[in-house]
């Protein structure tokens, strides 16, 4: 049988299309057979939801170093944060710092002495425009719909771009194996919380706004341990407690001039001073 060029191309074209289509149909069928096609995933109904989570931290209610330490310990114990003494290697999710380091540029020589000497509780600001998220090459850190700046430890490649980008020093790199021991043979994680993972050497970690607690309807650990000094809530909800505090009292945020829109408000004066 002789065949002209035109007829050959027609047949070749049609059979290619049929072949490709057939392959994809077969693929689809075999995948469907294997996959748990009817299985679904849903959020926990107990979980707390918001448009934009935020904190109001009343600096006057956090008087003594013991008050800070309670919040820091609550967070670090729950999340298996290693306590490494060498400041170059230390890992911190929540920590305290002096006024001039917390709010640089706003200090002055005639400042209230008590204020100048005071320590402020600092943690990830969960910015509305987070610089760390913009620079992350693997989208290991990302902004959730409810405002939490999440850190996906599975994806982190440890490039530390986010640490360079974050203006608040909220991120720590695991220079040491967090499950390791210090020079005296003491483990960095004193008591492991068996229900939460640790991290591994070479990833960046930070406060995750207790996403694992929010998901099952609990407040963040620091807010719970703070005796009311740290109020947690939805910044977009005008009736939330956190908004009422921010509306009625004088609050400041860290480095607002950088435009990252931090979600943590420090209540400076009580309503009696405002």
């Amino acid at each position: 049988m002789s065949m002209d060029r035109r007829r050959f191309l027609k047949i070749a074209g049609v059979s290619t299309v049929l072949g490709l289509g057939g392959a994809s149909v077969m693929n689809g069928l075999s995948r469907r057979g294997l996959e748990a096609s009817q299985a679904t995933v849903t959020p926990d109904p107990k979980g707390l939801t918001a448009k934009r989570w935020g904190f109001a931290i009343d600096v006057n209610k956090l008087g003594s170093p013991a008050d800070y330490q309670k919040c820091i310990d609550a967070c670090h114990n729950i999340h298996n944060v290693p306590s490494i003494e060498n400041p170059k290697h230390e890992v911190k999710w929540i920590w305290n710092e002096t006024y001039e380091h917390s709010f640089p540029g706003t200090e002055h020589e005639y400042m209230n002495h008590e204020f100048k000497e005071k320590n402020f509780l600092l943690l990830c600001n969960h910015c509305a425009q987070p610089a760390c998220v913009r620079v992350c090459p693997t989208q290991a850190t990302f902004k959730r719909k409810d405002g939490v700046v999440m850190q996906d430890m599975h994806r982190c490649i440890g490039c530390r771009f986010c640490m360079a980008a974050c203006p608040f020093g909220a991120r720590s790199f695991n220079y040491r194996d967090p499950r390791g021991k210090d020079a005296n043979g003491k483990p960095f994680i004193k008591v492991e919380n068996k229900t939460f993972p640790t991290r591994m050497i070479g990833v960046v970690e930070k406060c995750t706004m207790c996403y694992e607690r929010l998901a099952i309807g609990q407040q963040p650990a620091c807010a719970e341990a703070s005796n009311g000094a740290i109020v947690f809530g939805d910044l977009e909800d005008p009736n939330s407690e956190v908004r009422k505090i921010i509306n009625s009292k004088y609050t400041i945020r860290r480095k607002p001039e950088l435009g990252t829109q931090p979600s943590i408000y420090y209540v400076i004066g009580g309503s009696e001073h405002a």
Partner: protein
Amino acid sequence: MYNGGKIIAGMLVFLAFFTFPFYYNLGKANARPEPKLNTPVIQQLAEKKCVESRDFMRAEHMQLLNDWRDSVVRDNNRIYKNREGKEFSISLQNTCMNCHSNKKEFCDKCHNYMAVKPYCFSCHIEPKENKS
């Protein structure tokens, strides 16, 4: 053939070396790994069933775990409803390893046999091995 003796001798030596692993392991059947399921928690279960069928878990557990991981960390979806409509809390450390509290006898058995090294437990805390 020039140097025929040397070439043939060389080829024989090469063949002997090349096929050495096959001769060496001849007759030594490599025992098939049998992961153990007899943890106290599993023994107390009324219906001894994982989140999906045994065949599905055998073939697809790695994909399921990957999906679970992304589901929780990235989408905050923590409840898994399987094909039978049963619900599970998605958590390697708290759900999977609660039943399979024998990592050495369960996970490691096959993974060592297959020489795969998943890095789940470089971060997730493995259960205290149950000696019973």
